[in-house]
Every structure is written in C-alpha cells, then in structure tokens.
C-alpha cells in the first residue's frame, strides 16, 4: 500500500457527518427518483408481460395495436379454430377462446370519479388458458346468464364490483357472482362475463380477439406465416407475451423519458451540491494536504483520497435512495394504460439490476462531484498549502 489510508477518507466523512448527511440526502433524493422510475417501468412490464403466457397465441385484426381496436369476424374465428396448431383439451374441445373486449366507465369507490374498465367476454376455456387467474370468491358466471366475475383489484376499487353487487352496463344489470385473483397481471383490472351475452348487450357482431394454446410451442412461426398469408383472413398472430410487452412499450417509454428528465435535472443539482461540499472539504484541509505532500505522498495519492471520499459520499446517497425506493414496493399504482385506454394497477418492482444501476449511478454522481475538488487538492503547491496554517 503506497497511498493514503482509506480510513482517512472515511473518517473525514464521519467527522463532518452533518454536512455528509445533508449532501448524501440530496444525492439520495436523486437516486430515489432514478430507482423509483426504473421500478415503475419494471413493475409495469412485469404486470403486463406476466399477463401473457408464451404458449398462448393472440390473433387480432391486422394492424390493430390492441384488443380494443381489433375485430375478428365469426367466420374467421371458426376458420382459426380449425387450424392444426391449436391444442386440444382433455374434453376433446380445442383450447381456443373467442373473446370480446369492451371498455366501460365505472366510478371509483374512493373518489367517485369515473374511469375506464375492461369488460371481457369469455369462452368456456378462457380460464384454462390463463393459469394465473384463480377464482378467489364465489363462482364463475354461467353461460347464457347476466353474471360476471370481477378482478380482485377492481372489486376493491370500483363501485358495484364487489361480490354480490350489481353493475349496470350494456342496458342490463349484471350480478357479480365471483371475484378472481390474477396476481399482479393486468387481468386483475378486468370484468369477465359470457362472451355471447356481452356481444348481444353491446350490439357487437364480431369478436375482438381469438386466443389459443399452441399444441407445440415451436409451431408458432409456421402458424403465423400461414394464417397471415391466408387471403380469407385479415388477421395477425402474436405470442401473448409479445402482445402484452408491446402494450407496455408506450407507457414504459413515457415513464422512462419522464424519469430520466427528472433524474438528469435533479442530478445536476446533486452533483453541484457534492462539488461544493468537496471544495469546502479541500479548503478546510489545505494544511493537511500540504503536510501529506511534504511527507512524500504523490499528487495522485491526494487525488485518490479525495475522489474516494466523494465516491463514499455518493454511495451513502445511493444507499439512502435505494432504501427509500425499496419502500415504494408497498405502493400499488393505478393508472391509465394508454395502449388499451383502460385502468391498470401495478406496483413498483425492485430488482437486483435496478439496485446495481442505482448504486452505480450514485457513484458516478459522487465521482463527478469530487473530480474537480480532487484535482484542485492534488495541484496545490506544497509551500503555499503549508503556509495556510
């Protein structure tokens, strides 16, 4: 070891702990915003991607970006059902659901404000195609009846969605006979009822989408090529996971841009704060710097000691920010999914990747804040520094 001991940098931070804490808090705030944005995007993607299953294929009208915009005619749906790639269930029926997606307005329980909610008309195998969806209370709606089941997240937050309550839409009253839990997937924010009843109620002659399980997951490409090339069909096929990832893209991008703009603006402030703190640290220790140089420590040792001090300062901020951000996992955000114009609930998700990125970011801020003061410390003239006593 030929440098100034690490304890020198660490103890100097500890000695002026109040300043250290204030500066680190400023940086912590930035790291918090940075981490929270990444966690939000991660949470959104997790929710939407988890909504899909890689074995499932979603068929939509060509160039429609979401189920809401899509329409698949009955005749086309029959044709899709007869394709050889569709898996067959234990009862001999194809594992294929023709579904309808409609948006309606429901009032929130807490604010009484209306918000868009997805109504999904389901087929008999819809539940089977989505293993993440589990009936929590009550039962599934009977075919041919005006009954619905609501996602747990909706049941909690919207008027009329609780078990035993009644909803009015499509000029009919619908009784909520069950509540299903779909974990952190987007289905938790949907209402499901019999597709044929829904089509009548909403006067829709066509389905929104056709979803089926692949017999063999490798068969997707061949299926896609054939179906999309068939002149009788005006549809496109996507794996369900891909579909939901695409859905999350616009929102993630928006969140990322917003988060990055905030982070960049804040981080400039935090770096300036760290620079001021480190300049003050250098100014207060001019004699020490002169002494260390006189004892034989090289300029680069002085620079390293101050850069290390600033990196540690950044790391303190990083840890504060990440700890703060980790509490955000307790919060569930409910917002508009711009791809489907419907309500979507998701949580902040902290991953190891985000943790490392945030800590690295805090170190970068620490380095940027400490670089100039460290250079000044290293460039001091020994005699002038010693005379500063």
């Amino acid at each position, binding site marked *: 070891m030929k440098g100034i001991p690490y*304890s020198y940098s660490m103890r*100097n931070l500890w000695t002026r702990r109040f300043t250290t804490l204030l500066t680190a808090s400023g940086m912590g705030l930035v790291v918090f915003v940075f981490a929270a944005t990444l966690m939000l995007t991660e949470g959104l993607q997790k929710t939407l991607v988890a909504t899909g299953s890689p074995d499932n294929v979603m068929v939509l009208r060509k160039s429609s970006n979401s189920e809401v915009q899509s329409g698949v005619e009955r005749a086309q749906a029959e044709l899709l059902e007869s394709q050889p790639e569709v898996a067959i269930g234990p009862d001999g029926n194809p594992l294929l659901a023709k579904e309808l997606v409609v948006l309606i307005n429901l009032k929130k329980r807490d604010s009484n404000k209306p918000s868009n909610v997805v109504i999904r008309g389901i087929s008999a195998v819809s539940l089977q195609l989505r293993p993440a969806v589990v009936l929590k209370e009550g039962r599934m709606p009977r075919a041919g009846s005006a009954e619905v089941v609501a996602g747990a997240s909706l049941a909690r937050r919207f008027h009329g969605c609780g078990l035993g309550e009644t909803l009015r839409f499509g000029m009919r009253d619908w009784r909520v006979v069950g509540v299903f839990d779909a974990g952190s997937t987007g289905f938790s924010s949907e209402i499901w009822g019999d597709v044929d009843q829904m089509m009548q109620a909403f006067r829709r002659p066509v389905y929104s989408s056709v979803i089926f399980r692949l017999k063999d997951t490798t068969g997707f490409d061949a299926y896609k090529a054939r179906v999309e090339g068939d002149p009788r069909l005006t549809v496109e096929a996507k794996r369900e996971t891909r579909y939901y990832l695409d859905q999350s893209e616009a929102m993630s991008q928006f969140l990322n841009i917003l988060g990055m703009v905030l982070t960049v603006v804040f981080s400039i402030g935090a770096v300036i704060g760290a620079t001021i703190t480190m300049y003050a640290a250098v100014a207060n220790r001019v004699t020490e710097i002169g002494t260390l140089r006189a004892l*034989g*420590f090289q300029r680069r040792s002085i620079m390293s000691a101050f850069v290390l001090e600033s990196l540690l300062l950044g790391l303190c901020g990083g840890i504060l920010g990440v700890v703060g951000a980790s509490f955000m996992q307790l919060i569930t955000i409910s917002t508009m999914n711009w791809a489907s114009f419907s309500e979507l609930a998701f949580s902040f998700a902290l991953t190891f990747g985000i943790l490392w990125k945030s800590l690295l970011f805090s170190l970068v801020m620490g380095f940027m804040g400490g670089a100039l003061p460290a250079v000044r410390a290293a460039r001091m003239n020994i005699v002038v520094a010693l005379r500063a*006593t």
Partner: protein
Amino acid sequence: MPASGEPIVVIRNLAKSYRRGSQVIPVLSDINFDIARGEFVALMGPSGSGKSTLLNLIAGIDSADAGSIRIGEVEITRLAESELARWRAGNVGFIFQFYNLIPVLTAYENVELPLLLTGLKRRQRREHVEAALSVVGLADRMEHYPSQLSGGQQQRVAIARAIVTDPEILVADEPTGDLDRVSAEEILKLMDRLVHDFGKTVIMVTHDPRAAEKAHLIRHLEKGELSPI
C-alpha cells in the same frame, strides 16, 4: 554523537525569488552553506529574511531558481517532482510549528503515515511506530486522537512521525513557536537527544533565542543573505 566534519548538506550559489503579479521579489541570493552530519543548526533572522524558504529548499518541498543543493549523495535540485516526493519520504523528517497532525487519525496512524510509502509489512510498521512513540515517551497514547493530546504531546507525536522512517535530516520550522515554556523545553531536549543519541542532523528555523541556544551553530539570515559565521 558529535558533529563529524563531513558535510551532509552542501548548498552552492542558491537563489530563489517569488513572483507577485508582475513583481519579482528576491528571497535568497547566492547562498553557500554546508551543514555537517550530526549537526544541530539554528537559522534565525527577521520575518521575510528567507529562513523558511531556505529550510523548504533543503527539505525538497520548494524549487530553487538557481544553484544547487546536495544532500548526502543526491543533488535534490535536479530531481523531478515525483522523484523528490520519494526522496523526501525516506530522507527528511518534518517538524512544524503547529504540529500538522492529521486530526482524523490516531497518534499511531499519524506516525505510521510515512511508513505507508515504504512497502513495509504491517507488523514491521507496527514495530517502527511503537519504537518511535517510545522515543518520544508517548507509547501509552497511541490510540489517542490529536484533539485528545496537549500541544506538547502533539508535537512529540509529530517528532515521532518525523523520525519513524529513520531519516538523516530533520527540518523544524519554529517547533516551539506554539508551545508554553515547559513544553518547549521538553521538545528542545528531545531534539537535542535526537542529535546526540541518534546522530540526526537537525536544521531548525526559530525566533526563540532560548531554542537557538540548544543548537551547535546559529546562522543569521538578513535580506536573503547569510551572515558570516
């Protein structure tokens, strides 16, 4: 050990000036000066006479405009900055007026600092530090921080730091300037011991005639020139 005739410091035609804006202020001019090994030299003179500048040049922390300084076998006026830093680490011990201890490091760690540049193992460093602190009589205060020590004790820690690498030359800039009479006396006795028992060469700048009395040789500087002996 008395001073032997062989000079350890040989200064020839040394000149140094400072620049203040466009003004050039001469500080030292044509200094020729030898210091024998094991000698205790006091440099005296009024403020601004250039005595601290001369000390800094001998210690290798300032650079001369002209002339040469040879210390032992090394002409330090020819060394590049980083070589000079390495040379200082092994060959000069510094004693400052205000002790210049690092406040966040303990007495032990302060004394250990110069050894960190030597490549010694931790155990060897410990032996050296303990020996140096014993010489100054502070072996029992190793874990104290400078703020927990009196001025005299701090200066003794600083002396331990100066001798821990066993350099031949010790430079002291007003070592008693910040101390009361009793502590100052102790420090001077200690420096005297370093010369007599350990054979160190001490060059001390001082205003204090009592301190200068301890020296074998007193040289006066006036307006950048050394008075004749």
